[in-house]
């Protein structure tokens, strides 16, 4: 048994690797990117989600209860008649999860063009639960399923290489080339990330480098030029900023610190990249 904490499973994810895919979101991330659009994935422990839009302010959740699972949240999560309260985060066994995901294995086999679908392990940061990610990848592969890892690359090299072994494809995020800016906007140094990227590139494993185009932060010409150097011959996918990125913060009670631009994003020049695709 190798247990891990996940906060979501999403089927038919379209930007998480080749073919038809299902993505498993692992909880916990060492980075604190100011623009993060999955705040419920930041902590490893369960996170209470509150949808104010659904709330009738009836007060039912404020009445005392003796459910042990409600303890950490100071309110009862089991009585909301509107479904406004839910908890992100549940513990699962890698083998059982792989077994469950493998039910749709025949949907993931290569199509007539030879493109396989499969399962993508994402987060949070999957390397944060390295043992679990590796085991999940292993178990999926044993069941003939193509595996993809979506990662910030922030982990010890040993963890990264141990997890990488069980994945067929990697979606590797790059954000800021300048270490000082990286620390400022994500909370951590980009040193380990760059080291792991070089390791990935040298490994010959199919991968794509993904760059979130955050207005005024990552989409500057200087930064993109420096990232293009790091990406080298790797395929690059740039993701325009999603203006609803902050939507989930209210649900988690966390504060969204990034000030969203009010006008539509101008897509910057991307010609410095050797192989690039702009996602829509």
């Amino acid at each position, binding site marked *: 048994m190798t247990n891990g904490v996940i906060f979501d499973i999403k089927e038919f994810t379209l930007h998480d690797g080749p073919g*038809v895919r299902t993505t498993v979101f692992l909880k916990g991330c060492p980075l604190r990117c100011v623009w993060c659009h999955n705040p419920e994935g930041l902590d490893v422990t369960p996170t209470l989600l509150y949808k104010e839009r659904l709330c009738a302010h009836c007060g039912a959740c404020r009445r005392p209860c003796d459910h042990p699972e409600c303890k950490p949240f100071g309110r009862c999560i089991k009585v909301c008649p509107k479904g406004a309260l839910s908890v992100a985060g549940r513990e699962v066994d890698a083998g059982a999860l792989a077994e469950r995901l493998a039910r749709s294995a025949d949907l993931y086999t290569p*199509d007539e063009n030879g493109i396989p679908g499969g399962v993508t392990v994402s987060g949070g940061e999957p390397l944060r639960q390295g043992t679990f990610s590796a085991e999940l990848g292993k178990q999926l592969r044993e069941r003939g399923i193509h595996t993809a890892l979506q990662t910030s690359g922030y982990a010890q090299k040993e963890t990264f290489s141990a997890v990488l072994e069980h994945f067929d494809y990697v979606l590797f995020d790059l954000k800021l080339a300048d270490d000082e800016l990286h620390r400022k906007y994500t909370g951590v140094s980009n040193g380990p990330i760059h080291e792991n990227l070089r390791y990935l590139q040298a490994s010959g494993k199919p991968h794509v480098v993904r760059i979130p185009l955050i207005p005024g932060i990552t989409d500057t010409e200087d930064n993109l030029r420096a990232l293009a150097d790091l990406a080298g011959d790797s395929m690059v996918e740039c993701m325009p900023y999603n203006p609803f990125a902050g939507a989930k913060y209210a649900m988690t009670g966390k504060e969204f610190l990034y000030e969203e631009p009010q006008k539509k994003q101008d897509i910057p020049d991307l010609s410095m990249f050797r192989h690039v695709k702009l996602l829509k």
Partner: protein
Amino acid sequence: MNEKLYQMIREREHRIVRTQPVPPMAEVFAKEGLDVRERMTRRFEALCAKETPVILDESELIVYTRTVPNLPDVLTEAEWADIRAKHFVHELGYISNLSPDYGTLIGKGLIAAMEETEDPHSIRAMAAILDLADRYRIYAEAIGRADVAEVLAQVPAKPARTFREALQFFRIIHFSLWLEGSYHNTTGRFDKYMYPYFRHDMDEGILNTATAQELIDDFFLSFNKDSDLYVGVQQGDNGQSMVLGGLDENGNSVYSDLSRMCLKASEKLQMIDPKINLRVDHNTPLTVYEEGSRLTAVGLGFPQYSNDDVVIKGLCDLGYEYKDAVNYVAAACWEFIIPGVGADIANIGALNFPAVVDIAMHRALKNAASFDDFMKTVKEVIREECETIMSSVHDVWFTPHPFLDVLSGCDIAKGAKYNNFGIHGTGVAIAADSLAVLRDHVFGDGTITKDEILAACDGDFAGQEELLARVRNECPKMGQDDDAVDALAVDLLDTFSETLKGRKNCRGGIWRAGTGSAMFYLWHTKALGASPSGRRAGEPYGTNFSPALFTKADGPISVIRSFTKPDLSKTINGGPLTLEFHSSVFADPENLPKLARLVQYFISRGGHQLQLNTVNRETLLDAQEHPENHRHLIVRIWGWSAYFVELDKSYQDHVIARQEYRL
């Protein structure tokens, strides 16, 4: 595409050609003591004579536009009351929801058909059609449209020789059917009966890809000229469905360049008619699904897919001859019917599954010793409800339709080769979810008492918030790929089809079970309390064969898996699974092959029918606030597509409440 004509139709400016409504006729007919067949013929003759030939634009290729806006009844209210007292009258009493045999008449011409028929009313009806066609021809000549005049010099009197003549002939037949008073006049296997004309013109160099596409575009546009006059339950519910692809009698695929051009025309037009159905099977290549997906991405709610592997088998199991079953089409929405030889009434009743559970609970829950014991009552109620529906149908009566008879080769009001009746099955997911709660928690772990759940259903969970939250949000649901819940749906549907098996109806046909809901997803909830699954009183069901609206699934894969577990060849009256996708899913064309694969997966798992809707919640909400900004916004309702702003709010709200799959 003729842009000027397109804009005119899109902006409804062509409706200016409509005349004043014609006055009532029934009283006059009654006073003269005319029989109904005579009345139908007289009305048709009168309306044909009232029609004014119009050509909307100097480059309009396929002509005929309705100018008379109404269709006065042929019977007085008192006469209808008298008939209804003695007979079962289906819907309006005029024939609906059939697929006439267009191909034979197009290849024959009306003159030959008049020689073949002995019925004087059919002959008079055809004479009226010829007369109007001749007036159109003379008008075309007078305004310098020699091309139109030339086409009308051949059809509908004589057999079509070219693709354009065949399309114009079809238009005249279809126009005449509506004018005669049948409704939900479907289009049938268009790419099958039109293909010889298309192939001929392409081979002979009469048409090339561009000119053929132009013709098809113009022809497709013609379905939208009068469609507002063809009202069903809601605007858009008009039955102008078209079937493409599928197998022929020899097991070969019908899908051709013509089918592709039809998909393309639909994609360009972005209008609600004709509503496209695509027949596929386990051999259909992924490229066909990709071509279908391209149309889905436009957001019209079609194509709707149906699975030949399942449907043909299901129809044969019910006694349809293979050569007829292989020729099946979707009726107005999704009911499987046979063109030409069918007089099935596919929507004659509806079994309300959540009501079945409710009745069984009130009758037997308290004394049931076990869940299996309780399920015996559930099945007993299914049988009783089916009996009630079946016994309510006797002495079916339709008005005669002398012109439709020509396309049917018989007096269609009396029936045809197939006279089967179909019963929808609504809310099966909610019933299965509810039974799962009873099985797992009332009989199983005992965490919910019988009194509690009965009180919750009768009192709409008042004061039982915790129970509501638990059953609604935490208990497993059909659509989550949970075998234990899905097995209950299998059991319910099997019981339904078993109950109807071998039963004869009053027209000598049989009964067919289905998974459709039509408008019953709203209507069936009216007299029902809450459901054990946490559905509140008054809350609608999912559309047709779909999860409850509040079901939280991991995504469309689980939903597809759940809804393909029953043997759907047994519920072949039809009723699709509907998946809603947020429009952003289709922003990137690279996603279309992925959607294609998902549809193929549904088919490979034995799904019978699939509808895909492209929605954008934000846009729909804005359209409710500012309808004037969204006049062309199209959504799929229960088996047809409509302009969102023309729907009643309850139908709008239902679309908004459905779960959509996002990126």
